[in-house]
């Protein structure tokens, strides 16, 4: 395992596909699009395997591709069920605490434009700083911030109307010292 180069493409897929599919699922909000996105990401990775391995971060490569793909025009099948399956069933593996979960928020995420949703996923699921998000999506940091602010504002309005007017710069500024 010390030798990363010895890790083959198939081994990478075998060990990371499920995690990548989860990522695709939170990016797209539904199972079919997540599967398509993952497949597309892996096809690209396969073609670039030699190059990517030298960079030692095949996973980052795929995640970047998947995020960009999702935002770009790419959509192989037009789907109506944007909301997908609202996760009701919880992950109940013994000892794993339930994360806070709000089905209404999951639904509200489906109403966001894709780029805004991707920014939130990268920030709150991948826990990336804005600089990294900007790099991944090929946009400026300012755009990341404004997209996040807009998305949060919309979510806050839908999610808990009483708090809608508190949306503002402090949200965004607050993120940087998180």
């Amino acid at each position, binding site marked *: 395992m010390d030798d990363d180069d010895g890790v083959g493409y*198939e081994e990478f897929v075998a060990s990371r596909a499920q995690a990548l599919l989860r990522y695709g*699922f939170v990016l797209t909000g539904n199972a079919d699009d997540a599967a398509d996105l993952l497949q597309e990401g892996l096809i690209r990775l396969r073609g670039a395997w030699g190059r990517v391995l030298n960079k030692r971060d095949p996973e980052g490569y795929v995640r970047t591709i998947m995020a960009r*793909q999702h935002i770009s025009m790419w959509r192989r099948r037009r789907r109506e069920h944007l909301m997908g399956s609202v996760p009701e069933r919880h992950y109940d593996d013994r000892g*794993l605490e339930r994360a806070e979960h709000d089905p209404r928020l999951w639904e509200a995420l489906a109403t966001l434009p894709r780029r805004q949703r991707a920014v939130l996923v990268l920030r709150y*699921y991948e826990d990336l700083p804005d*600089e990294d998000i900007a790099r991944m999506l090929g946009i400026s940091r300012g*755009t990341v911030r404004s997209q996040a602010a807009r998305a949060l504002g919309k979510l806050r309005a839908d999610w808990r109307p009483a708090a809608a007017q508190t949306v503002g710069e402090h949200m965004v500024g607050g993120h940087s010292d998180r």
Partner: protein
Amino acid sequence: MTDDLDRALRGTLATAAQEAPSVRPELLDRVEAVRRGRRRRRMSAAALGTAVVLGGAGVVGTQLGSGDGAVPVAAAGALKPVARADLADAVKVRERWPDAVRKLPARLPNGSVLRPVALLDGDVLVGATESSLQRPDRLWSYDLGARRAKVITNIVIPGGSKIFASDFAVGGGQVVWWLSYRADGRDTVEIWGAPVAGGTAHKIAGMPGAEVSTLLVDGDDIVWAASGGVYRAPLTGGAPAKIPGTEGFGIVSWPWIGSPASHGDKLGYVRYRTIKNVRTGERRGARLAPFKGAWTCGVTWCVGGSATGVRYKGEMPPIAVQRRDGKAGRTLPVEGNVLAPGAGVVYGRFLPYYPDGPKTETHILYDVQNGTVLDTGIRRHDEVIGGPKNRQNPQYFLTNKDGTTLLDFSKIG
């Protein structure tokens, strides 16, 4: 700053992710088929116009064209060199925090050498004796006040043993350990336990494999990392259950797990580049400053040292320290060969630091949080403080020619 919506978003996304469907078994075949089809149509990935920028280790990857104009370059803060003169005089740990360093008996009253495991409340030292080198045969509790020792349990040594009882850990009233053996051509790992109060050793769980990287007690469960991922089983015994999504991960600081888990010192290697909290699903990457070396990351801090196969033009690189998020980067001066940077930061805060290389006379810690140098006063011979298996365990036992000394990180202010 975190508010309710931040928290709710994190929780909702983490939970939703667990609801993703399973990967289709034919995924690889489909990838191959589609790819072959595309190649036939002479469409390369690049022609699709996807812009890809690879992050990490200060290396910015190739861009294959982008729609959105300027792309900011990786911006992990640069490493600020700290000169020898910048380091204030070392704080003497023994004087400032007398409880942090404690000399302990190296032998039981019967004269046997005791390998310490844990110092419990009430001054009871739990440790193991060995029948031969690294072959523990008995666990003891030694009441230091009363100077009386009693056997906790006899350690069962199976036939075909490959690795003898290792990584003893105490929790939930039990002391646990793991061992491995080979039987019928197959390697098996077993986790055993015994009540700290004394009793028969019993098997808690077993599974195929040759080695466990970290074993610890988590409430009513034991948790361990092995080559296949991270597992848990009830402390009372039962089948091991693999925690989903942990393939390739090791235990960084429970409940944080990280990948890649193996030790490595190739140029640009980052141990635990990605970490994940198994309770919340939170993930964190690492944004590292450019540095000609290899890194080891913990939950918050990353430490860089020299890499193999790199020519350093007669001068070894300093030790690099920075936060995982790219902040607070600096390099520490070292004379002579760098010792043990691979140990990483211990107890979330302390970096074993040998400013004079192999000539360093006492065990020194560098407090990464406030930049102070701490002299434990524990004389060193040729040993270094290695990375403990469980980085949250505040007790570190140092054994050398001078005997056994307990360094309790939790007692350092």
